[in-house]
């Protein structure tokens, strides 16, 4: 089989294959383990039953929706009390509730978010809400 304009055709194919396999040679076989968000903040260590607002799986998948719900409730409806798992009462506050327990933004929120490709400015929440102070 004769290939006409082989120069162009072969280089085009090489470009295509290089682009299509980009992740393979970009990772070069490095297996990075899935992140382990740290739960060793003072507030959590003090807890008897180490439980979040909702069940762990629900939190992992749906914490952004819970935050959205809280935000709407507080900002639009003016309600600040949320009954979580096991009837536990929470104040619907991003900084005073979530970040009181999870005061380790960099080793908790950010480890996951970096892994799934949200930049440090996304979630953009931190442009207004103050991230907890760490290690100083």
């Amino acid at each position, binding site marked *: 089989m004769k*290939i006409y*304009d082989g120069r162009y055709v072969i280089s085009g194919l090489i470009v*295509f294959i290089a682009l299509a396999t980009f*992740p393979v040679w970009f990772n070069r076989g490095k297996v990075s383990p899935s992140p382990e968000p740290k739960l060793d903040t003072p507030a959590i260590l003090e807890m008897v039953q180490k439980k979040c607002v909702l069940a762990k799986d629900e939190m992992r*998948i*749906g914490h952004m929706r819970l935050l959205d719900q809280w935000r709407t409730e507080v900002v639009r409806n003016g309600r600040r009390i949320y009954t979580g798992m096991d009837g536990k009462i929470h104040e619907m506050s991003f900084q005073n509730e979530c970040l009181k327990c999870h005061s380790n933004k960099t080793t908790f929120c950010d480890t996951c978010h*970096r892994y799934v*490709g949200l*930049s440090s400015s996304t979630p*953009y929440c931190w442009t207004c809400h103050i991230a907890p102070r760490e290690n100083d």
Partner: protein
Amino acid sequence: MNFIISLMAVLALVVAAFLGIEAAGLSRVFGVAIPYAAFILLISGVVYRVLNWASSPVPFRIPTTAGQQKTLPWIKRDRFDNPCNKIEVLGRFIMEVLFFRSLFRNTRAEVDKGPTLYYQWEKWLWLGGLALHYSLLVIILRHLRFFAEPVPSFVPVLGGMDGFLQVGLPGIYVSDAVFMIAVTYLLLRRLIIPRIRYISIPADYLPLSLILAIGVTGILLRYFTRVDLLKVKQLAIGLINFQCVVPEGIGTLFYIHLFLVCTLIAYFPFSKLIHAGGIFFSPTMNLPNDSRMRRHVNPWDYPVEVQTYVEYEERFREKMIEAGLPVAKDIAAGGPAIYSLTKK
């Protein structure tokens, strides 16, 4: 009817993935085997199609003459609509591939009760096509966040720009909305406009139905049911590092989404979608119109024995005179030839 066929095909795929996961528990098949098979089919299929095209010679120029060819210096010519060298062809290509220029020229012809034919300005197809392709590009680039670790720095930036509306959590991506609108438009266009419906076959509807289904499942996954992205990324990273980890409990909807994507990429080289590669092989696009400047010799030409008229007459003159046919060289008269024929 044609649409129903393609819709049934897509539904069958969805059901197959659903049953495969829910009833048979084949998460290794749907999470590992099928993605690899689909990817191999994609690469080998594209290579095969491209080499197949490249093995056909195109000896002569078949230019689209959508503009004035290069000619006398005082006639204004159209550099990109009628290119005469490789650089200009490249220009035409860039405009075609990036902006779908030939689609922009689309008009609609209509006979409006009467003998007069009207041509109307019709840019919706161009706009829909452009919107679809660019939003698809953004979506594919955004998906790199699952396949690359560390995530290349442009991906979060792109995601941030795409989610600039900052509506809801997880935030709505503009590209998702544009994609769904464009696919729906392109599908409705085929279904509603009678002439286009008439020429549409299942192979036209299938890619559209497939990407529509991929879009719907993707949107469900992101905005509604949600999945554990950490597990999804583990699966994806495992695939590209050839270590097949299949985390438990990702959810069936994710496998349906993945299976539809696998079907699409496996189907890609063997369907109309390969126009992505085919455009580079379309002779009306990739050839400069230089027929008047260069001689193009057909590579299939083989030497043929030819006989000039002079040789012919030399051979048959006697007989021609007998039959009363005029001959070029009148021998009887011994005079000059009536008209001179010279061998070159």
